[in-house]
């Protein structure tokens, strides 16, 4: 790691957006470069939208949007000659997601005649290795989950370990222009350059946390806008890149609440950020200075994320305006669930614990699943039937067997057979796999690089070979 004198210049980091591909405003690049940033850093994903992106290796943001933003960022990299640090590439940061991002970077480089030095940081894990760690007592659970077992590891389609800043240090040492990282802590990616330059850990990590969603922690209130960070010896300053927005004490001090279960402490690879004594001062109309942020070193752990996809769903949706049903939604729901369950059993020969039928009454209590206030009468009910089984064929089979009942069940026996509002035909949709996160565990490592594979691509031929 580089060390610098205590009276050194503040480190300047440009965070162009909250997540790669959400849509950079091109004029912000000029604003940011005018302030001489030393690095561009941002993440490209999160677990917020579910396990599908890790399980499939596909991005949430579409290729065109990611290419557009990467084009702007790579253009800025060329103009300023500064490194670009990307974390959690392709939404989930698995190897497939990293390679998908590399493919776009190479395409832009080819089209524009750029020749950047590219570093790839892979943090996907072999199940075999995770089982070894488990056997060696190196894995512990985070609440609310219990201990890990081998069967759970086997259920995961992909497993990643959350990187800290250290793999980025290695890539920066190697002179990388563009660092395409797998799954990493968002604050670590943004803090990495400053930490590498020897800036203090408390302010660097806190700055990383504040800027992880781009300008969301400012009056711009959106991750589509960029933010500029300066990190000094005992402080950091944050300001939106576009002068029409402002960072305020209220907006910045409130950001640690966001998507974080403890408002003062943030656990990260190798330590904890403690903001209990952080102080926030409005230094200009649009800039906030933060002091007092502390970093408490801890034994080095990496959080594991694993996604499964071993169940399948078929869904059906129907619109109901029938006043008899609207007057007694709970009765209708119970009767429908019983009827469909019996029908599924008789049609497939399965027992009731070998499949799942879930009914959601949108317009009544579809989101909560809880009883609404007494006397609530919906105007309409959109009823969704979610059928889950071990194969797509089975889920589909159950749906087709249930179809006549789901779309035509009368509230009481003896009533004329109704036809509720079908929105389309056929009435059932095979939805595919159910993707779930199974791991909420940390693995202890002796070295922050132990579980990370780093590849530096120096020249075009090598890049193309890796690409092929």
């Amino acid at each position, binding site marked *: 790691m580089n060390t610098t004198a205590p009276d050194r210049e503040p480190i300047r980091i440009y965070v162009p957006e909250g997540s790669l591909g959400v849509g950079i405003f091109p004029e912000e690049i000029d604003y940011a470069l005018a302030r001489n940033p030393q690095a561009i850093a941002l993440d490209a994903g999160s677990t917020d939208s579910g396990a599908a992106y890790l399980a499939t290796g596909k991005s949430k943001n579409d290729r065109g949007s990611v290419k557009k933003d990467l084009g702007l960022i790579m253009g800025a990299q060329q103009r300023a000659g500064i490194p670009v640090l990307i974390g959690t590439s392709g939404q989930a940061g698995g190897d497939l997601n990293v390679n998908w991002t590399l493919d776009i970077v190479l395409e832009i480089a080819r089209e524009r005649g750029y020749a950047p030095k590219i570093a790839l940081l892979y943090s996907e894990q072999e199940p075999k290795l995770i089982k070894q760690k488990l056997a060696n007592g190196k894995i512990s659970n985070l609440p609310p989950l219990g201990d890990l077992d081998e069967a759970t590891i086997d259920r995961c389609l992909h497993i990643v370990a959350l990187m800290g800043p250290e793999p980025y240090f290695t890539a920066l040492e190697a002179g990388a222009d563009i660092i395409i990282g797998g799954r990493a802590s968002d604050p670590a990616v943004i803090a990495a350059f400053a930490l590498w330059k020897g800036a203090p850990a408390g302010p660097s990590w806190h700055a990383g946390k504040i800027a992880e969603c781009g300008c969301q922690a400012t009056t711009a209130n959106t991750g589509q806008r960029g933010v500029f960070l300066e990190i000094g010896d005992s402080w950091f300053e944050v300001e939106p890149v576009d002068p029409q927005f402002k960072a305020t004490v209220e907006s910045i001090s409130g950001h640690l609440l966001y*998507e974080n*279960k403890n408002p003062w402490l943030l656990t990260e690879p190798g330590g904890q950020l403690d903001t209990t004594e952080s102080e926030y001062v409005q230094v200009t109309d649009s800039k906030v200075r933060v002091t007092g942020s502390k970093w408490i070193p801890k034994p080095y752990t990496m959080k594991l994320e694993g996604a499964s996809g071993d169940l399948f769903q078929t869904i059906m949706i129907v619109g109901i305006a029938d006043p008899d049903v609207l007057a007694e939604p709970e009765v209708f729901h119970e009767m429908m669930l019983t009827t469909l369950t019996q029908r599924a059993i008789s049609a497939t020969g399965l027992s009731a614990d070998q499949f799942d039928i879930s009914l959601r009454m949108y317009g009544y209590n579809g989101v909560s699943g809880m009883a609404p206030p007494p006397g609530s009468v919906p105007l309409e009910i959109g009823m969704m039937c979610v059928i889950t089984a071990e194969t797509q064929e089975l889920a589909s089979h159950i749906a087709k067997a249930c179809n006549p009942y789901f779309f035509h069940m009368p509230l009481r026996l003896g009533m004329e057979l109704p036809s509720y509002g079908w929105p389309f035909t056929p009435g059932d949709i095979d939805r595919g796999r159910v993707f779930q996160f199974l791991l909420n565990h940390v693995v202890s490592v002796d070295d922050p690089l132990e579980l990370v594979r780093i590849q530096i691509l120096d020249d075009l031929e090598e890049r193309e070979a890796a690409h092929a």
Partner: protein
Amino acid sequence: MPKVKEVCRHVRSKVAGPFWVTIDLMFDSQENYDRYVRSPALSADSIAAIYGIVPETISLYPIPQLKVLKISYPRRSPQGSIEERDLHSGQQYTYLLNVELS
């Protein structure tokens, strides 16, 4: 007795990782924060009853500097499970808006 929505300038909820939900009640004044942050209607027991979870698993963080009460609790089922109704947990705050405070 005022409702939560009458003494807060903003209330929001979101996943904090795939296994936790976190709700922020941002009070509209120091006075209302001081008066209601420890209301029995916002105790772990009361919150547990609303969301059908165990009181011991709920963490309450009163933050006087921000006039915020932060409430974190484990999801009833992990994000994206077969019974999922609110993947981002972004609608969970709504069930607190009409809670009456004393």
